[in-house]
């Protein structure tokens, strides 16, 4: 096929006149990691809160949590990204919208992506947390209550430490999903890995080299996350506990 391979393209200086294409891809990697790590923290916090609330046996609170999950699950992530980026600044009160629009565009896209991906992932983590708590034997909270623990203590000392271990494997795949989903931030102008590869392809016409580099970067990040999560899983393992039989 008449495609001109040129792998040395990565060392050529890109359109900004300063960075090589390789350096631009590396910046893309940092954006991807930055968005993913911050969104992951947000997702864990909110997901834990929503997941715990949805097992609270308080009718209206459980309904609210179910609604939260359905809301994020049934709208495509790209549409959510557009809502956060284009619509939310328009409808915010007190001139907050104007303040957001006055931000540096790259950082504006960055924080929008963190919030959008964080809340989207939180709805998925909430489902896992809820399922994890429900997977524990009903005798556990009863025993905790019988020992005189308060509701909060039952969650803090009995339910959540076990749930954390049960949901480790699904959390790993959610973390991988989050990294993959962060590529959607490219549509609002964040030059993360996919965006950097796409702009490199547009400037150089070296289609396959650009996307091959992005592919390798994603595979490396994936592998690192899998190894990290396995380490965490191993550190947390309790001998004899059902989740650790392997």
């Amino acid at each position: 096929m008449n495609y001109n391979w040129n792998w040395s393209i990565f060392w050529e200086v890109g359109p900004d006149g300063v960075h090589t294409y390789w350096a631009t891809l590396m910046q893309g990697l940092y954006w991807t990691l930055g968005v993913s790590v911050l969104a992951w923290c947000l997702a864990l916090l909110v997901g834990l809160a929503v997941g715990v609330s949805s097992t609270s046996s308080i009718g209206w609170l459980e309904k609210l949590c179910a609604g939260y999950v359905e809301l994020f699950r049934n709208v495509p992530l790209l549409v959510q990204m557009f809502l956060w980026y284009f619509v939310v600044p328009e409808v915010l009160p007190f001139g907050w919208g104007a303040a957001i629009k006055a931000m540096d565009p790259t950082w504006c896209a960055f924080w929008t992506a963190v919030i959008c991906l964080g809340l989207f992932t939180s709805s998925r983590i909430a489902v896992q947390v809820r399922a994890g708590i429900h997977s524990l034997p009903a005798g556990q909270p009863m025993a905790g209550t019988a020992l005189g623990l308060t509701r909060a203590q039952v969650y803090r000392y009995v339910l959540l430490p076990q749930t954390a271990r049960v949901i480790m494997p699904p959390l790993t795949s959610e973390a991988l999903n989050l990294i993959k989903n962060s590529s959607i931030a490219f549509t609002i102008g964040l030059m993360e890995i996919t965006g950097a590869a796409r702009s490199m392809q547009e400037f150089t016409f070296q289609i396959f080299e650009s996307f091959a580099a992005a592919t390798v970067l994603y595979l490396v990040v994936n592998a690192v996350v899998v190894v990290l999560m396995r380490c965490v899983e191993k550190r947390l393992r309790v001998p004899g506990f059902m989740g650790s039989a392997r």
Partner: protein
Amino acid sequence: MHGFDFEIIFRTAPYLFKVGLLFTVKLTVLSTIGAVILGTLLAMMRLSSRKALSAVAGGYVNLLRALPLILIIFWFYFLVPYIVGWLTQAGRPIAVGGFTSALITFTLFEAAYFCEIMRAGIQSIPQGQLGAGYALGLNYRQVMRYIVLPQAFRKMTPILLTQMIVVFQDTSLVYVLSLTDFLGAANNVAQRDGRLVEMFVFAALVYFLISYAASRSVKVLERRMAIVR
């Protein structure tokens, strides 16, 4: 902010639904059908006792599942013309339409996910049934065709339909190729008339209603099938 303009939604509804949503639904249905067929073949390959077959299928599935869909869309958008050119011996890349390119991409990408679902379905059939089939003198094809796959499909129907809803939502990503799916159509109007708020809120609402109704129906179906079994 000049107040929410409902009128523009009514005015552009025929375009949004007849052009946009039709594209989305066509892409969803056709690529799901293709992906289920390809995914089932991949699942059978993955479970094959021939090491080479299962390694190829496993590698394909794991690779595609590790990469973001947007990147895959770009890959195939540029790769498919080269492959078509190579297959037809044309000696140069042959342009395929945006819809065809999207259809090929989604079929190949979602096949990796449907493969994992079908693999679970096939593995859920007790080994004894396969043994019984072979004992009756059926060959591999017949065992799969008459014993394993009908049961696997039946068992996995709710999960297959749920994955189809995911495909429906994923198709919005053809936005990056500037194709006119439902979101693309809404985006076109939004950019032309400067009505971003109305169009994106309306698009979100339509996606939500369709996905929510569909996932509810799947739940009902799941309950009914559970009683039959």
